C-alpha cells in the first residue's frame, strides 16, 4: 500500500509528538540524564528574557488556535 503525501505528513507529526511523550516518560525514570519538559523549560525561564519569551510563546499559541 502506498501512503498518500497527506498521510505521510500526518504520520510525521504523530511520530514527533509521540517521541516527545516517550522522552518525557524516559526523563521521569530515576537517574535519567534526560531532563523533563518542565526542567528544561524552567532552565530556559531562569533569565528574565527567557521567561518573557516562553510566556509570549504560550500566549501566541492561545491566540493562534482560539482567537483565529
Amino acid at each position, binding site marked *: 500500500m502506498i501512503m498518500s503525501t497527506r498521510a505521510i*505528513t500526518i504520520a510525521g507529526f504523530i511520530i514527533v*509528538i509521540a*517521541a516527545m511523550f516517550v522522552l518525557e516518560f524516559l526523563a521521569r525514570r530515576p537517574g535519567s540524564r534526560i531532563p523533563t519538559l518542565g526542567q528544561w523549560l524552567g532552565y530556559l525561564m531562569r533569565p528574565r528574557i527567557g521567561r518573557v519569551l516562553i510566556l509570549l510563546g504560550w500566549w501566541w499559541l492561545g491566540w493562534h488556535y482560539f482567537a483565529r
Partner: protein
Amino acid sequence: MATDDVTRRGDRLGRSGLPLRPGPRGRRLRTAVIGAVLAGYAWAAGAAVPFSTTSLVLVLIPGVVIAAIAYAWPPERIPAPDRLDITGMFWWVIAVAALFEWEASAYKDNSLPWHPSLTDLINPMIGPHIVKSAAILLWIMVGWALVRR
C-alpha cells in the same frame, strides 16, 4: 477535620490574625472555586466566534492576568536545575527541531491539503465547543504551570 483550619506554629499570619495560607479544607475549596471559574471562562471563550473582537479579548485576558501574576505576585516557583545534561537535552532539541521543521515545510508549501500544517490538522479537532473549551482550559493551566517555573 475540624482542626484543619486551626492555626499552627510556623503559619504566617495576615493582618486579621488568620493564616495567610488556608488549611487543607480551605485549599480544596479554593481550588474547587478557581476550577469552576476557569471552566466557566473556558466554556464562554470556546463559544466565541473566531476572528471576532470577543475571541481576541477572551484570549487576551488570561495573557494579561498571567503576565500580571508573573510580574507583580509571583507564586512560589519550582526551582529550575542549575545545569542540564547536554546529551540528555540533545534528544529534546532533535524532537523540537523536527517538529518545527515539519511545520515549517508545510507552512512553506502554503499548507496544501496534501501537506497540511499542524494548525490545519488541529483546527477541525477543536471545532466542537466542548473540545475547544477543554483545550482553552488546558492552555490556561499550562500558562499557570509556566508561571510557577
